[in-house]
């Protein structure tokens, strides 16, 4: 299934990642689905490398839920007004 990507703005405190700790500012969320395993990644808008959102991987019982999980994550992470 295709990856899903959305731009968002991190709220106060940023987003914790495995590789570089907290990232802040204008970011992009990407969720990937591989054999039912969903992973959430973020990167700085327009940057070259993606980082794993800490704790944000799970197995989906139904791959049709990918969009819904992506929307939930985006709703939690997106804080354009701070």
């Amino acid at each position, binding site marked *: 299934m295709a990856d899903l990507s959305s731009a968002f703005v991190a709220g106060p405190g940023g987003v*914790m990642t495995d590789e570089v700790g907290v990232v802040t*500012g204008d970011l992009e969320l990407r969720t990937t689905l591989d054999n039912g395993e969903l992973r959430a990644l973020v990167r700085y808008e327009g940057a070259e490398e993606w980082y794993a959102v800490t704790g944000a991987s799970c197995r989906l019982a139904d791959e049709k839920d990918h969009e819904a999980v992506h929307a939930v994550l985006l709703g939690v992470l997106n804080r354009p007004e701070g």
Partner: protein
Amino acid sequence: MSTVNKTARFTAALRLPAFSLLLAGVLAVGLVTPAQATPPSIPSTSTALAELAALRVATEGSTSGYSRDLFPHWTTVSGACNTRETVLKRDGTNVVTDSACAATSGRWYSPYDGATWSAASDVDIDHVVPLAEAWRSGASSWTTSRRQSFANDLGGPQLIAVTDNVNQAKGDQDPALWKPPLTSYWCTYAKMWTRSKYKWGLSVNSAEKTALQSMLGRC
């Protein structure tokens, strides 16, 4: 607090054996207490204020094109030792390294949070001015060679061994967004941050400058 201390000292002086034991205890603690991590070239308060005043104030630039690969870090310093291992040895106490320069034992005091660790795996080397923050403050226009020098800067107060979780919580944030948990370290931290930005010609944003002025006001 000072009254309690005076009483304790007075009592000990009256009972000599107890005093000797106390003294021995203090000496023993003194021997095992790790030294404060002290990166070089931390400026005086007046110098830091002058350097802060000289920094260009600008809104942060874009993260477009950013990658940590553009800041090659932990380059070889000497022999088998890279920058990370060199800072671990500098900032730790009784650090023992193997033939590959990996720290196999030692103690590390993290001035950000006051914690002491006995495993190098619990310690990160913090880039005081984070790489992504540097990118947004001017380093995006540098050569990779200059970015490499910045990311491995042992001559200024840009690298320090601290508790890994604290380093992760800091991430890419400037002092307007993140400060060390120990307020007693804010003065030193602001001096280190300011010197690094000054040395490397990086800009500050207005919120960051205000935070640094406030932190330097605690010195």
